């Protein structure tokens, strides 16, 4: 343990990843725990009271959400495309893909709002009219989980809109890709969460 005597080594080099990216990953770790809390509760509550859950498809519309899932997947690919073109410096393509991503995200939210209104206003559920957050554990968990995911999408769309505006001002380019990459990480994470939510909330 002769720490005192080892003369200055080479500076240790962090982890060779720029700071904003590290920060985003660290932040995503906490997001993982947040959704794990929600999903864990969902699993336990459902396990403990499975009779209060409807068959998949009986209440929640699978087809619409499958389409919505598809929208989100598409937005993920447009997002990486935007990043790839930023690296290559294709100004036109950056604008195109960022805008597309924003629109796809917004479309996802639109479909979700439509889904919610349909459920709350028109769905028959356990004898009462309307499937709401207070409609038993099924409703409660459904709205909490998808709602918080939707909130994350909303934040993402706002940031994407801002990134798109910047794109039109020519902000991004070959030597300015970090913002897009970091935003992309967040966006893909939101997609990833949806992939899991879609499966356990709608399909199982």
């Amino acid at each position, binding site marked *: 343990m002769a720490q005192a005597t080892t003369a200055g080594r080479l*500076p240790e*080099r*962090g*982890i*060779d*990843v*720029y*700071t904003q*990216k*590290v920060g985003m*990953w*660290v932040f*995503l*770790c*906490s997001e*993982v*725990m947040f959704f*794990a*809390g929600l*999903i*864990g509760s969902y*699993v*336990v509550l459902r*396990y*403990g009271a499975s009779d209060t859950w409807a068959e*998949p*498809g009986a209440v929640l519309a*699978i*087809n619409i959400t*499958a389409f919505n*899932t*598809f929208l989100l*997947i*598409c937005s*993920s*690919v447009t*997002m*990486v*495309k935007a990043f*790839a073109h930023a*690296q290559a410096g294709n100004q036109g393509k950056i604008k195109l893909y960022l805008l597309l991503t924003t629109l796809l995200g917004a479309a996802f939210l639109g479909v979700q709002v439509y889904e919610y209104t349909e459920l709350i206003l028109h769905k028959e559920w356990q004898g009462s009219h309307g499937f709401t957050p207070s409609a038993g554990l099924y409703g409660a968990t459904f709205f909490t989980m998808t709602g918080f995911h939707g909130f994350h999408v909303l934040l993402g769309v706002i940031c994407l809109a801002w990134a798109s505006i910047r794109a039109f001002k020519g902000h991004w380019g070959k030597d300015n890709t970090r913002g897009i*990459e970091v935003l*992309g*990480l967040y966006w*893909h*994470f939101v*997609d*990833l969460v949806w*992939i*899991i939510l*879609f*499966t*356990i909330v709608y*399909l*199982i």
Partner: protein
Amino acid sequence: MNQGDSRSAGAADHDGHEHPKYMLIWLYLAILTGLEVWAAGLPIAKWVIVASLLIMAGWKALLVALYYMHLKFEPRRLKLVALAPLPAVAIMIIVILMEY
């Protein structure tokens, strides 16, 4: 801000690797989603459906993380950061499930 920040701006993340085939992954994800929807309605034992759905969902999640989030191409220490919460998640869910 300083050393830590600036040093790696160049090399590692730009030309360290070929771009993964983003469109191919996209196709993959779309097909898996279709498969999931199809499998959910199959007239087979529920647990088989649940297991296969979970596998497919995990697979999709992995594809997104590895390729779209570039985790596959990141240095090992960043991978560690990304994996850090998973043990905690696993412990939490296993224990609260053990009650029932």
